[in-house]
């Protein structure tokens, strides 16, 4: 058993032992006083040990969350779909990991998953990070779903800070983890004032921020979480995805759900919704530019990140590892290879030529 497994088990254990303690209390009220000092009663220790022996899932509902929680999350999701880009509050539950580590995304994914689903988890483009692996394993254990690392196989994908390179379809849902929900917080720390701005579609302060950006840098210098206007109404943070991924939200076939567990907010971009990055007519929105191709697969039409190898070498490589592996096997493979049509717009237009390196 790896250390991660143990950690997952331990945290998964906690509610069970609480339940055991509660049972003991109802059967014998006088035991409450002695419980703290005398926790070594044969009953409770045996009970605890016995529950360690099974797979730790006894007493848990399907997909970890109880049905009321799932209903609550689904309601928020439906409302969010009905009002594209609007931040809908929901009762974010404590999860077996700290808030800020994807708890909103996990609650949303687990509320959506059914036994027929295939689930994929991405953490900054990678399927293999500890957090992604653990979230995948939680769904595997509690919701009994198939898991995959192949974007085209998944029906529900939970992701942190990336949208996959392969074109997503109307049969898929992308759940994005969100650390900071309100794009206006960058320009004003008061959520109260910002909510009023959203209500009145008053985004002049964000515009001044962009203006001053251009004054200072000659172009808009926002790295990730580039503010977008959804359905010509609400200003929305697309979560800290790179600018590269932002155009993928516009008029997509896929449903995008954004969930923030710490801030207890869910918002959505339904399929075929207009999503427009804020920019001036003469200072347009720009995606990241890369001078090189991916060192591993040679791609020039994917989002690259600079990585350092064990020898201290610095090189550029695809951030989406699952697609990079496919490209390594077959360099000709298109982002829309799995669709029955070609020329699908997904992400930035292929502006980079082969010789600008």
């Amino acid at each position: 058993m790896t250390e991660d497994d143990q950690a997952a088990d331990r945290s998964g254990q906690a509610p069970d032992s609480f339940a055991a303690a509660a049972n003991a209390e109802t059967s014998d009220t006088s035991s409450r006083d002695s419980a703290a000092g005398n926790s070594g009663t044969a009953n409770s220790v045996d009970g605890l040990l016995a529950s360690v022996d099974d797979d730790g899932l006894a007493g848990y509902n399907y997909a970890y969350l109880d049905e009321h929680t799932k209903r609550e999350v689904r309601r928020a999701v439906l409302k969010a779909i009905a009002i594209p880009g609007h931040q809908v509050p929901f009762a974010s539950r404590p999860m077996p990991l700290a808030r800020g580590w994807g708890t909103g995304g996990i609650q949303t994914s687990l509320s959506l998953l059914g036994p027929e689903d295939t689930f994929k988890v991405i953490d900054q483009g990678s399927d293999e990070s500890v957090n992604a692996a653990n979230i995948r394993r939680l769904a595997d254990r509690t919701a009994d779903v198939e898991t995959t690392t192949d974007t085209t196989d998944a029906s529900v994908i939970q992701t942190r800070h990336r949208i996959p390179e392969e074109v997503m379809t109307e049969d898929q849902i992308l759940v994005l983890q969100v650390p900071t929900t309100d794009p206006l917080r960058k320009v004003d720390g008061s959520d109260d004032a910002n909510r009023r701005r959203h209500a009145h579609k008053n985004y002049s302060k964000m515009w001044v921020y962009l203006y001053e950006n251009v004054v200072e840098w000659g172009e808009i210098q926002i790295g990730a979480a580039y503010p977008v206007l959804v359905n010509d109404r609400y200003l929305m943070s697309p979560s800290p995805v790179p600018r590269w991924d932002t155009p993928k939200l516009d008029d997509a076939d896929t449903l995008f759900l954004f969930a923030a567990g710490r801030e207890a907010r869910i918002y959505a971009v339904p399929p075929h919704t207009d999503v427009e990055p804020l920019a001036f007519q003469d200072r347009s929105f720009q995606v990241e530019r890369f001078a090189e191709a991916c060192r591993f697969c040679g791609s020039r039409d994917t989002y690259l990140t600079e990585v350092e190898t064990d020898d201290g070498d610095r090189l550029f490589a695809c951030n989406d590892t699952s697609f990079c592996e496919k490209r390594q096997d077959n360099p000709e493979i298109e982002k829309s290879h799995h669709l029955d049509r070609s020329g699908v717009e997904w992400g930035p237009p292929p502006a980079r030529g082969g010789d600008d390196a």
Partner: protein
Amino acid sequence: MSLLSVHDVKKLYGDSCGDCVSLTGDAAGTNQCPDCGTVVACADINFEVHEGEVLGIVGESGSGKSSLAEVIALDLEADGGKVRYHPYDGNLLDANYQERVELRNQHVGMVHQHIRDGLNLSFSGGGNVAEKLLSADWRRYEAIRDRVRDLFNQTEVPVERMDDAAETYSGGMQRRVQIAKALATEPELVILDEPTTGLDVSVQARVLDVFRRIQREQGVATIVVSHDLDVVRLLADRTLVMRHGRVIESGLTDRIMEDPHHKYTQTLINSVI
């Protein structure tokens, strides 16, 4: 036709007993209702502003002139009355929030008494003016820059300082940036609330000079609210004198300065000169 006409505008602070207006005013010698304690900031206010005209409103502190200015600038809800304003169809006081925002963005400029109400000091001076243009849906960066530069030239704010934070500006510069901001979208009406408060005399003169020149050139109708008779004397064609929430005298500025009829106006002018 007049640009702005104001009928029976009323603004009360407090839960009114119903008789507040008749129990206060010039004859009663107070603006606070003796029965219920409600403050009658303004009542029975009637006046008109014509295109290109400058109307002065003078009065002592607490006379209701700032409340009146804020009601007309759509920053404050009135408790009754009718305001017709040419760009808006209907009673201006009934405009909903969205209409108010549009009017403020396009058709009314306000220069606030307190700098912080009018400017965001952490933005650059240029950014503050740009905010007004951006609110009015300007979306071409170069066009915005050109307009801001132009406005800075007109208001005599050094253009090379336009990208510095507004908090690094002197008080007079901040005031002139506010004027630039108020004029940015070429509104039909500008409201100046105490435009010279807190400035020394030479800077006051420069701010007023700048404004008077632009006002003459562009023919923008203006309401100047001030406790300072000199400001009103310099700018205004016509003047209202307010006390205890009522207009007690109105007329051409020269007439009021030279031949004040009301006892309070006489005291006011004598105490200045």
